[in-house]
């Protein structure tokens, strides 16, 4: 039933994901542009594939948008399973997602990213990107705030869209 609902509302979910990604990216880019954080997820992701800075930004952004869509699908699946989707529930989900990202995912990045250095071995010819450190604090002490806010906005927009569409597992 859930799968059928997703297929049936494929374009809607794509649009919600697009809107949510815009909100999240706007917050992250703004915080980077204003100097609140040096974190750029697009650059972080893109440099996993290429060492060319300009290509890394473009490639990273594309992968990031695709990831945003996949996460949007996951959020909608959760809404459908729980049987409830609203702006505040999306917000809570986004906050939880942000915390997991900061506490679990970011600290692991130096060990899986091919171009990221780590605190124990130091930089090498290929591994020379600054690691994020605990909850991304290496990229600026406001980084956790901007990541959490961005993820919360992502969830909020998705929840709001879901709420307005009145989508249910029954279609």
């Amino acid at each position: 039933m859930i799968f059928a609902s997703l297929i049936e509302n494929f374009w809607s979910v794509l649009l919600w994901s697009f809107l949510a990604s815009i909100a999240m990216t706007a917050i992250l880019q703004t915080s980077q542009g204003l100097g609140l954080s040096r974190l750029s997820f697009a650059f972080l992701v893109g440099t996993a594939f290429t060492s060319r800075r300009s290509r890394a930004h473009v490639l990273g952004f594309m992968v990031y948008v695709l990831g945003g869509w996949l996460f949007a699908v996951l959020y909608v699946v959760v809404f459908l399973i729980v049987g409830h989707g609203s702006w505040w529930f999306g917000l809570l989900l986004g906050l939880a997602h942000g915390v997991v990202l900061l506490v679990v995912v970011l600290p692991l990045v130096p060990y899986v990213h091919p171009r990221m250095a780590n605190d124990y071995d130091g930089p090498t010819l290929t591994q020379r990107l600054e690691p994020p450190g605990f909850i991304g604090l290496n990229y600026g002490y406001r980084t956790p705030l901007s990541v959490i806010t961005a993820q919360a906005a992502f969830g909020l927009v998705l929840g709001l869209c879901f709420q307005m569409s009145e989508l249910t597992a029954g279609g």
Partner: protein
Amino acid sequence: MSKRDRINSVSATGGSPAEYDFAPVGDMVRSAAGDDYSPIEDYGAIGDGRSVALVSRAGSIDWLCLPHFSAPPLFSALLDRRKGGCFAIRPTTPFRSWRRYARDSNVLETWFETDTGVVHITDCMALLPHRQQHDTLRPQAEILRLVECLEGEVDLEVVCAPRPDFARAGGWFEARRALGWAYCWGDAVAFLQGELPLTCTEDAATVHGRTRVTASDIFCMSLAYTRRDIAVIPALGAAAVDRVSDTRSWWQDWSDSCTFDGMYRGAVVRSALVLKLLHYDLSGAVVAAPTTSLPEAVGGIRNWDYRYCWLRDAAMTVQAFAELGYTHEASFFIDWLLHATALTRPRLDILYDIYGETHLPESEVRDFEGYSRSRPVRVGNAAQAQLQLDVYGAVIEAAHLFVRHGGRLDRGEARALKGFGDQVCSSWREPDEGIWEKRDGRVHHTYSKMMAWVALDRLLDLAEGGHLRVPRARFEAERKAIEEAIETHGFDVELDAYVAYFGAKEPDASLLLASRYRYRAADHPRMQGTCAFIERTLDVDGLIYRYPPESDGMPGREGAFGIASFWMVEHLALAGRVAEAQIRFERLLESSSDLGLYAEEIDPETGSALGNFPQAFTHVGLITAAMALRRAEAEAPADGNRTDGKKSQ
């Protein structure tokens, strides 16, 4: 290749300082921790086309603005030894030091000799080979310092004390284990790495360390800067040595393409390297100097911010680049010139920042004592608001030179130049502040009128060549009117010379440029009289003041003006007085620092450098004077001085 092999290939060192092909200059015995200010000429400049660091003879980086020339400094001990911050590597005991640039490059080498041994330090800001510039993740700027002990053993201390924005922005060091130390401030981070133990002070503001190096010991230090992005931390060891080598090769490849083949090639190439240091590689702009507030009179208030682009320098800079074979730099600079000025057209301001910004309000850094207690330290430049009519002539002459060297003007550029011509026609009758930016009011400066004449003359020439369209009759009539005004009011019959401003009795060294800009031939009687007047009144032992000292109403006595002294050389060469020109030129070469660098001014009594350093304008003067000498020598009879001169206008 091991790090040792790489080091040898970079520095070609291995003996005592006496074995090297340069001589010690002056009294080199210094205490390791002197409290006083280094002489201005004691600084060497390293850079990466975006900013310049000044390295003292005592191994201290006392000035560095990041991420670009006009940005706030990270190190500014140059302007306040106690508060400004520095990045020093030096022996802990008294030492003698020698330095030079690695051949035809901006990679600085310094030797320190103590009672116990000799240490060699190579300093540079990293550049990558062209082919790798887009392929590699790299920081936005990196300072590399490579230390090698050549003989005996030497105790060294390292101090890195960033003080961003004249110590007004808060920052702190964080230990990042194997990644070194991260200095964080605002939206930027600088990673300090060193192959020696470093510790941090309690206030987290300074990292320091001491080590004893013995013969064949080598260590690297790197300071890598990133702003608003995830930092890139370069590797040390052999990789760092390779980066030094790549940087040296980059500069040498660039220098090797210099087409100047006359006498004084060494000095010309060094000056070209200084211009390249001051050429901002993201926009094409050339800043006047990388520093602010180095005093024109020590202890005085003549301290200005020169980290901007003066349009006046345009024509000479373009000519210098173009005639040395650096057409890319000339063309890039012209592009910047014509696009940066788009916002103010048809009016031209006198100075712009590297991106064309004209809002550069002047303020003072009140907490800083200034170089050798020369207050105030200024940021921004109030001269920006002045009216200086000569800039139109300079910009149009630059475009004319660009076209003469094969460049092409697009339709928009041609329209802009014609607009400048219209502006000259409507404004040349106004008084202005003039080339020297005096702050005592406007008068009718003769040089400004001459440059207005040059502007219209070159536009008419470009129109003649079909490069643009101008209202010919109007421009010709205005050109004639300007000339009549100059000849009537700007020439003093009693003095037999052109004078600083209409009705004045004062000389002005800028009037020597009338021959270069072909307003009057160098051997024209009026130019001969002007030259003699300037020699009588502004010349001190081969050095030329720009105007009579202490005549500008400001306290303190400034030095002789570097470029004015080179203008005299150029004028004499154009007049066929080649032997005199050559003597003066060689005298001026002796006035440079031991590294071949010039500040804005030279103290005629002590030979010390005064004003911002190194100064593009002075180095442009050296290049154009050398080129004039080369041309004059090619034209002169084999037996020496030519006295007949060219046919006068």
